[in-house]
């Protein structure tokens, strides 16, 4: 029982990290209907910018707090530049094209960002320390023999994800820009006709997605080190999206939790009998089965193109 709980909690915490990546997808899909494959590359870019800037500032013997803050600001500025360029050079030119064309364009952006980030910031594995504790801690030692092993970093990651979602919810519900974003998500043409500038909105959405990528990059980076494989996280986030629905922020979170927990449990308890390594496709198969019964996802909007 103790072992089961340990795997479950480990899976749930990993799931939180998946949802961090999935969130970026949802934001952009909601506001512009673009399926942004580049989210993984954005996580990589943000993570690399952050860790390299932090290294440089620490070499200048800045106090850690200031260095960390400046590094975050630097990475945020990079993400803003990327958002601006994407809007200016890609999205604006591809208005009214088919979805698949836009999707391909984001794959092009993925390649570009991966190349750019690694050219500018280097292509090694960079350990990232943003001051979060990394010690393993034991929970419920009185209940189970040896307790449940949990990594403190994962808990902080979960807290960060929670704060991020709360912040995004506030931003979407309570601010002027948030309302404009929701209007655009609802109906592009109608939003434009009441005077909402689409181009600005798209910039803001890509910027917000970039900041989410920055948080994801910081958390994943301090867990695994900032490295190229962060870019592949995009593929991990896709089944989460299917499960939670492409347009739902809470869906991304719940979907991430389900996928994370299911994946780890399957790997540990089913994996050995099937030769191991089933983690890579288990999430997809769960998502696929799910699609057959509820194509709009757990919390997605019901308007879905059914066949």
């Amino acid at each position: 029982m103790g072992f089961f709980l340990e795997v479950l909690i480990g899976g749930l915490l990993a799931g939180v990290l998946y949802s961090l990546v999935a969130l970026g997808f949802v934001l952009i899909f909601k506001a512009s209907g673009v399926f942004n494959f580049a989210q993984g590359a954005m996580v990589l870019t943000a993570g690399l910018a952050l860790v390299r800037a932090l290294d440089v500032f620490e070499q200048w013997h800045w106090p850690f707090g200031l260095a960390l803050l400046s590094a975050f600001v630097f990475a945020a500025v990079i993400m803003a530049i990327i958002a601006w360029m994407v809007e200016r050079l890609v999205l604006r030119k591809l208005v009214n094209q088919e979805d698949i064309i836009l999707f391909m364009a984001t794959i092009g952006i993925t390649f570009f960002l991966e190349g750019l980030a690694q050219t500018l910031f280097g292509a090694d594995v960079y350990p990232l320390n943003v001051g979060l504790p990394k010690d393993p801690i034991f929970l419920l030692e009185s209940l189970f023999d040896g307790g449940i092993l949990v990594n403190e970093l994962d808990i902080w990651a979960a807290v960060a994800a929670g704060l991020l979602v709360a912040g995004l919810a506030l931003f979407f519900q309570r601010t002027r820009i948030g309302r404009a974003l929701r209007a655009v998500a609802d109906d592009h043409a109608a939003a434009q006709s009441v005077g909402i500038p689409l181009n600005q909105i798209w910039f803001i959405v890509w910027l917000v997605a970039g900041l989410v990528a920055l948080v994801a990059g910081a958390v994943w980076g301090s867990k695994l080190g900032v490295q190229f494989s962060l870019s592949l996280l995009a593929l991990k986030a896709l089944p989460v999206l299917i499960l939670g629905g492409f347009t739902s922020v809470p869906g991304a979170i719940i979907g991430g939790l389900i996928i994370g927990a299911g994946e780890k449990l399957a790997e540990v308890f089913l994996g050995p009998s099937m030769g191991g390594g089933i983690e890579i496709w288990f999430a997809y198969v769960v998502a696929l089965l799910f699609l057959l019964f509820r194509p709009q996802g757990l919390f997605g909007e019901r308007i879905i193109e059914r066949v």
Partner: protein
Amino acid sequence: MLYREAGQFKASYQADQAIFPVAQDRLVMLALLIVAFLVVPFVTSEYVYRAVLIPTVILSLAAIGLNVLMGYCGQVSLGSGAFMGVGAYAAYNLGVHLPFLNPFVCILLSGFVAAAVGLVFGIPSLRIKGFYLAVATLAAQFFGDWAFLRIKWITNYTPSGSVNAPPLQILGWDLSSPTANYLVSLIFTVVLALGVKNIVRGHIGRQWMAIRDMDIAAEIIGVRPMYAKLTAFAVSSFLIGVAGALWAFVYLGSWEPAAFDINRSFQLMFMVIIGGLGSILGSVLGAIFIIVIPIFLNQALPPLGALVGWRISTATVSHFEAMIFGALIVFFLVVEPHGLARLWSIAKEKLRLWPFPH
């Protein structure tokens, strides 16, 4: 001036419905085939064969297969790499367990295995479409990756997981030279492409296009969506499977599961989109473009860097390659979202009028 169809009268329905109704198109096509079959083998080096020609020819076939599904039937698929793998491993297993079969018979038969697998993974398309379907086909990709690596009988229990193709020969003829490899792949691709061209002109192809353009309207005029979609999946997987078997037997010789990973799927999708959705010619143009550009960048970047006094390491070259490749894809999508095939037809339009303005 040169490309003028005035005066070419068609006196029968047969002539009217020919694949190339315009005489100049027929001539150009014939000339291309003659060059490809008879001239190229005498003028190219082994490097060009291995680096450019053979990959282009084989991946053209795979791209045509994917185009059947994406371009003609409108079903997005990101699992084509895995279907290529299914073809490759099916051909391998046929060769191992039925050693009396000629390798080329194995390659053809493996297409049917891939078609069967494609049918299974095509079933979700009956319920979902668009990006949801794309993600569903990703399931096929990841399941394939895992199966090739972990299910041991697929690789015939080889300890390293890497398998070898049987020697290529027909009736005692040795076909392992690069020239023979090239000609064999070219024959497969040309014959199958001709077949596909005819299928998409026929009633099945029209049903696919009806489904692509508007599925509800298609259903109302009597197209069965299930039949149309599943045939598209089967035909597409057949072609991709044969291409995968060719890739493994003719090009790679010995291979590991990584040869058919998700990057292969993306590569094929790029070919189809850059080349032009719903065009056989486009698939071939796309394949040429996607294969030649990285080689070109790889060769051209270090000298260019040296020109400005900057020595570029191989790692940096590969990053630059990714950047330029990504930028080019975006550029092409912005300039011509309908692909190279569209550019070609615009050029033909212009030629028809040239040199007069109207």
